[in-house]
């Protein structure tokens, strides 16, 4: 059952990701990205990360992607229609990427010859309670700093996007 779930959602993730890259219209890309994130949330659950799975759905698929879609609609961004003049780049980068992927896979295989199987329910340390305990004890300072970071981001966004006062 674990294997079926993994392959199913891994396939959905990869297909959606390819879709993100090849779709011409930004809205299509954005919706495909939501698909990637959703399937990743399932994979997180399989890995025992309950809280992260929920956060993935709420924060990523929910908040951030909504923001994206919002901006796309606000700017009325249409499909890309610029002529393909970057073919040199494609010719150079495509083999590079394939090489990169192959090399990483090779290293992962060589690096973990006896990798454990992922069995759902074997690791239960990812519940909201566990994450919360860690967050408010060992990771308290980084957590507080992220709150400052978000505050700064809010101010930055407001400053950048506001109307120029002449």
């Amino acid at each position: 059952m674990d294997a079926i779930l993994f392959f199913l959602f891994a396939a959905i993730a990869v297909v959606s990701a390819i879709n993100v890259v090849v779709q011409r219209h930004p809205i299509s890309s954005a919706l495909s990205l939501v698909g990637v994130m959703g399937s990743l949330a399932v994979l997180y659950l399989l890995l025992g990360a309950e809280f992260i799975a929920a956060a993935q759905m709420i924060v990523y698929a929910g908040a951030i992607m909504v923001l994206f879609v919002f901006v796309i609609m606000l700017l009325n961004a249409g499909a890309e229609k610029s002529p393909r003049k970057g073919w040199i780049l494609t010719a150079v980068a495509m083999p590079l990427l394939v090489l990169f992927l192959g090399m990483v896979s090779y290293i992962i295989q060589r690096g973990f010859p006896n990798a454990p199987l992922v069995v759902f329910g074997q690791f239960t340390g990812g519940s909201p309670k566990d994450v919360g305990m860690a967050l408010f004890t060992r990771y308290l300072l980084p957590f507080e700093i992220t709150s400052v970071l978000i505050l700064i981001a809010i101010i930055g966004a407001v400053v950048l996007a506001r109307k120029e006062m002449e």
Partner: protein
Amino acid sequence: MPPIPLPTAVPLTYYLILSAILFALGVAGFLFRKSLITVFMSIELMLNAVNLTFVTFSYQHKQVDGHLFTFFVMVVAAAEAAVGLAIILTVFKNRGTLAVDEIDSLKL
């Protein structure tokens, strides 16, 4: 890669390789797409790929730390999205375009 006869569970490495594939696709999107927004979405894709790695390793070590890193990445991603999209808005307002190729004032 040894053949696996439809196992009940998959090894950890599969997750990692999936993460690598997603990351490579993110890079590809970053390199090949013209629209600033799509480029930005590719970055989000790469971040997600990295998050998957964190959670996977967290599973392997049976520790919650990886989850926390993921959590922080999400926070940063949210902040980044807010600022980044504001920048995109400003760029669009000033230049009237979202094409990456036309935004090349980094060149002297």
